[in-house]
């Protein structure tokens, strides 16, 4: 008796839940990817007399310290995604640390003009204060771009990262 009642209640609940889901979908379109940005810093602690370096979430940072940014992208749809391009402006008051941009299966490029154009490192040029054109240094970079090669299968998660120093 009780069981039947429960099943009926359950069926009713399911119907109501489905209705709720439908309402949500039409109110706010969801993309295929879930994009997360995390920032961490390396702290050295004494553990049993040994110095251990661990990454912890960076909540407070001192001028001169280094932080690591990671962008995670997960395919939350049921179709493969491709042509994935991640773009990250270098945050205000920070300087890109050379050779720290990384990501499995990606091609990395940089911008020195606020994201208008990108080129591989070493191929970028800037005009110095003396008016002369020179090769851009990592301190000149304004944005980092990763082009993820291939497909991102449903449910798969990948990440890219880079480091900056706080001025």
């Amino acid at each position: 008796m009780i069981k039947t009642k429960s099943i009926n209640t359950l069926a009713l609940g399911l119907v109501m839940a489905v209705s709720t889901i439908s309402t949500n979908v039409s109110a706010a379109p969801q993309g295929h990817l879930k994009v997360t940005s995390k920032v961490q810093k390396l702290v050295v602690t004494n553990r049993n007399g040994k110095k251990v370096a661990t990454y912890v979430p960076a909540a407070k940072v001192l001028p001169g310290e280094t932080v690591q940014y990671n962008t995670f992208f997960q395919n939350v749809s049921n179709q493969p995604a491709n042509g994935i391009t991640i773009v990250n402006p270098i945050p205000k008051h920070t300087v890109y640390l050379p050779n720290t941009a990384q990501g499995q299966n990606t091609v990395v490029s940089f911008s020195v003009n606020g994201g208008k154009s990108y080129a591989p490192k070493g191929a970028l040029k800037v005009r110095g204060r003396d008016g002369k054109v020179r090769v851009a240094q990592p301190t000149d970079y304004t944005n980092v771009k990763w082009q993820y090669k291939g497909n991102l299968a449903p449910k798969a998660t990948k990440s890219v990262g880079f480091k900056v120093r706080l001025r």
Partner: protein
Amino acid sequence: MKHTFLKTLLSAAILGAMTNAAFAAPIGTPAGDVINNTASISYSVGGTPQTAIKSSPTGNTTPGTAGTPTSFVVDKKIDLLVTGNTTDKAVQPEQTGATSDTELSYTLTNEGNSTENFAISVTDAGTLGTVGDEFNASNCTIAPATASLASGDSVAIIVECDIPVSGTNVANGKKSLVDVLAEVTGVTQDTDGDDVNAIDVVFADGAGTSTDGAIRNAKHSATSNYIINAAGLTVKKTQAVSAMDASGTPITTGDLYHIPGATVVYTITVVNAPGAATATGVVLTDTVPTTMTVVGTPTIAITGGNGGAATMASGEGVNAVATNGFDLDADETATLTITATVN
């Protein structure tokens, strides 16, 4: 020997400067600033480009919105620097800061990333008796004794002390180290890990001189020094028999004797060493033996250096020769010439 000193125009200029801080660009991102980061992803599904999705700290799936920045806050970095700018300030024994120029110059800079208040003090430091710190100056005054500086700004500090009387360790070339210590006031370092709701305070200063002596204590210090620059006088007296015989005929060869009637020329020279301070009120005296009689008027002349003049005193006894007081600069020679005959 009396010495007189004049306060120079230079010290007036320093007095003006010391009331002004020097303004410079801030050092480091200001404490309390929030640093935001947002990544943006564009992609295609089935060959069709999709609307880009911006990041959030916990994961965003809504395309076409601004996302939520991933943030951190900038902590307060306490850092300061004191420099001693005066090396070998030349002073004489018994000089006082109140009546003469014994100014030592220092600079305090706020090298942290926040505006802070500082307490500044002076000590006659160093290890007394070691080379480079042979004597102690005393009664040192310091201006300013407090300062409020924004990140990157500096203030000029002036110290004046009294110099002791001359002695073995207060002689030409002897030095005294004077130490200025600055401390950030009103801050304590956070040692309990990150405070979620407040900015942490971290001490990041280096170690200064002996009055500071430690890193990361919100203090820093530096030294300047005095050097005694006394006058360096050397006195020499020679006597020469004028090369003439009793009849006044010049003798060019042979021995010269003190013969009654012979003329003797006494020469007394005093030389002030190169680089030495001016000796003032120098008086040369000489008493010619009573077996001699002074002939004519003794003369005093100054050669070398800046030139200068000296005069003979009058009203002395015939055999008691004296000059009036005169100044002798470095590298000058004063020559007193007395001609006398043997009785």
